[in-house]
């Protein structure tokens, strides 16, 4: 009887309406969120300054840890909205609850931030404009009051949660709810960490690319100005750095990736022979992967140093291995030596999974070793090869340590890669806006190349 009631058209209609209403509340939460504002006030030497600050600018102010709760809240409410639109009440309700709780936590903790640097700057400038001289330590607490729209946002969040909440009056419903929510309990911690440590910094990174920012004060939105400088302002330092850095990064990827695939593949094939001592050599080949890139690069640097380097002295070689074109050889050798171990282990495992019968059948058909490699081994390893090719390309695009230690900016920046410029501009020079734009361009390049690779490899797979 109960099942009949639940499944009746009227109940279905009610359920459908509730989901739509919940989705509406979730959408309203997001809309009103950006209309919210706070009123901050500060009294210095009997002069009071007040300022109304919108929630939008607080989100992007990067001014305190509690602000980090806002992107989590927005992201969770977006997930809730998507869940409701896909008629998933359990997930929608759960995500809207998370979003609302994080917004509530933000409201509690932000009020307690009596020394919020971002608000202090806004307020102190107003007071200093009156000609009053003071320091931050001389002033009292910053008072924060929320506008009514903040409380409306909070209420909308709770309504989105309650309206979408599934019926839990019967044991069967509770069981269904539990079944529906259980996967979220498993992935919840990961999603939380993913949002906090990946999504949020990535969003801020993209945002910073459109700002003028010294890594200390609030970023100032300047639209696409950084990209205009990087792409069109010939003669500008950053225009030149982007071109040189990107070109050198592409060069390095082109030179190193084939070796980063072929060398471990050759070693894996050699170790497959199970000859005497192969376990020992396997350990030796893997060993560099356990070391830090600084250790590896410094060791190679000392070995190949022009004066007193072991190699140059032993072979009586006159070359300066840290000037082009030799510097590119050094960079590739060091990189291959370092990354070889991890890729080799993947290939060994792939080789072990190819059935021996296929090789036996090949032998019966008269295939030689090369034909067996081309027609049995390579097709049998296509997924690990695809995986390692894509991850190696991404890893080599992010090259930083090797050229930094081996060559630096010498030889008129002949080996300077883009990440070296990104780090120096952001951290040493505090020109973080342009630096973020450079990093974003590099990220887009990596995405494009990876996407292209995947398309090509999948097309080959279909054929």
């Amino acid at each position, binding site marked *: 009887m109960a099942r009949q009631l639940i499944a009746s058209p009227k109940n279905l209609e009610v359920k459908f309406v509730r989901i739509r209403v919940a989705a509406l509340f979730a959408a309203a939460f997001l809309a009103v969120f950006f209309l919210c504002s706070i009123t901050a006030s500060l009294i210095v030497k009997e002069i009071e300054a007040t300022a109304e600050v919108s929630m939008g600018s607080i989100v992007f102010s990067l001014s305190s*840890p509690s602000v980090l709760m806002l992107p989590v809240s927005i992201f969770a409410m977006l997930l809730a909205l998507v869940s409701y639109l896909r008629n998933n009440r359990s997930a929608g309700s759960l995500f809207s609850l998370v979003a609302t709780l994080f917004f509530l936590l933000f409201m509690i903790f932000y009020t307690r931030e009596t020394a919020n640097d971002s608000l202090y700057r806004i307020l102190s400038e107003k007071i200093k404009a009156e000609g009053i001289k003071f320091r931050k330590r001389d002033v009292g607490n910053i008072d924060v009051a929320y506008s009514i729209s903040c409380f409306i946002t909070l209420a909308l969040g709770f309504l989105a949660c309650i309206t979408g909440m599934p019926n839990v009056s019967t044991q069967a419903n509770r069981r269904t709810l539990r079944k529906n929510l259980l996967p979220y309990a498993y992935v919840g911690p990961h999603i939380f960490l993913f949002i906090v440590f990946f999504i949020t910094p990535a969003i801020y990174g993209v945002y910073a690319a459109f700002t*003028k920012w010294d890594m200390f004060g609030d970023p100032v939105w300047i639209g696409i100005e950084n990209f205009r400088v990087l792409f069109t302002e010939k003669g500008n330092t950053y225009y030149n750095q982007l071109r040189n850095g990107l070109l050198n990064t592409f060069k390095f990827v082109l030179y190193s990736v084939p070796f980063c695939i072929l060398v471990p593949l050759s070693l894996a094939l050699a170790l497959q022979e199970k000859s005497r001592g192969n376990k020992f050599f396997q350990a030796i080949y893997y060993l560099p992967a356990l070391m830090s890139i600084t250790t590896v690069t410094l060791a190679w640097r000392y070995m190949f140093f022009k004066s007193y380097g072991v190699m140059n002295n032993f072979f009586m070689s006159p070359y300066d291995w840290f000037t082009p074109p030799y510097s590119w050889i050094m960079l590739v050798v060091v990189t291959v030596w370092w990354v070889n171990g991890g890729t080799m282990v993947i290939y060994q495992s792939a080789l072990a999974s190819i059935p021996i019968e296929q090789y036996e059948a090949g032998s019966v058909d008269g295939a030689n070793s090369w034909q067996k490699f081309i027609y049995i081994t390579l097709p049998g390893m296509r997924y690990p090869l695809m995986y390692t090719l894509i991850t190696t390309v991404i890893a080599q695009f992010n090259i930083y340590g090797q050229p930094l230690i081996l060559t630096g900016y010498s030889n008129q920046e002949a080996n300077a890669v883009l990440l070296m410029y990104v780090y120096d501009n952001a951290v040493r020079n505090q020109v973080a806006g342009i630096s973020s734009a450079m990093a974003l361009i590099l990220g887009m390049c990596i995405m494009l190349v990876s996407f292209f690779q995947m398309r090509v490899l999948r097309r080959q797979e279909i054929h």
Partner: protein
Amino acid sequence: MTKKLSLVLILALILGMSAQAFAAPVEIDYWSVFTGADGATMQGMVDSFNNSQNEVFVNHTPMTADDLYQKIPLAVQTGSGVPDVAIVHIERIPMFVKQEMIYPVDFLMENGIEEENYIPSAWERTDIEEEHYGVPLDVHGFVTYYNKDMFDKYDLNSFVEDGYLTFDEIPALGDKARENGYEGKIFGLTWFRAQMLSYYAQLNGKLTEDGTNPSFNNDDMKKVYQTIKDLHDSGYTTLKGDDPLQLFHSGDLLVWPEGIWMKEGVRLAGINYGMLASACFSPDVCANWMSSHNFVQFADEERTEEEDIAVAKFINFMGENSLTWAVNGGQVPAHVSINDVEEFGDLHQAFLADPERGDELAIYYYLYWGIFDTAFSRNGWEPIYGTMSIEEALNQAEQEVLDGIKALE
């Protein structure tokens, strides 16, 4: 009754004294840019301070300069984990002041820090807009090491008798050494920025005239480049790809411009060395590029008056007991009391603390020091090696500073 009263009073006195004796010390957090051997020396000095009294306990966190300059903005911005006192390089202070990241030290000065106790050239650099922001721990700079045994062997001591080595003397020194059978290198090209700025200071060169725009792309700087290039092209300097440190440690380099902090390494390498001021155009204009480690207080309104007093006490102790810093750290303490310590006078770097040679200490002041440093150092010795022209290198560095300022302001 009187007995009882006396008993109560004695008891109260004992309790009071015990409370005083067992009162928890004021803990202060101290961040420094000293790692490696310097870090160990500084930790030793902090331990000495902690053991010398019971009222203040200093928690020392050493880290590399890059790490400190990366962490500090985040700490100040969030107001969490801000150290009560920190060591920073003097060149960084103007930008910290502009960003309102540090407090003036007037409160420390009300609690025992006195201007007259410090080397003026280091103290005055942190007077900014009528406020004072730093208390110098030391001055450290670029000098010239020479291999005494080799100078004796090849009869070269006449070139350094007056305590100076001029650019005109270097070819003569090299020629004489070679005539007497020496086959190694003569003069080292080492840390580009420090070496070049030492020579540039001798021509009264400034990084900026108006406080904002760079002014180093001028004839004086070109003269410095050309002087070194002439030495290089005539075969009197180390070459591209050489490692001057290894060459000097192996007795294959006669004159090695380097920082005073490198002297312990030279001693450990078993080199009998002497130390001179930077190579110069003439002795009367000699100047050495210097920097200074300064105690500063980053903005933190939760810091109490008690902690500020503890910081002042700590800084005073470090100034008054800085011989260890001179002996083990190889630095020149900025506290003038060091000149009264006989042992300090025997150290190689003591000439840098000589009040009569105060003009030789060239500390640069530029709001955009960070950008300048990166831009100026980017091409390094390349124009000297001939892979690019001097004009090209200077134009590129100047453009980079201008673009950096534009991107920030």
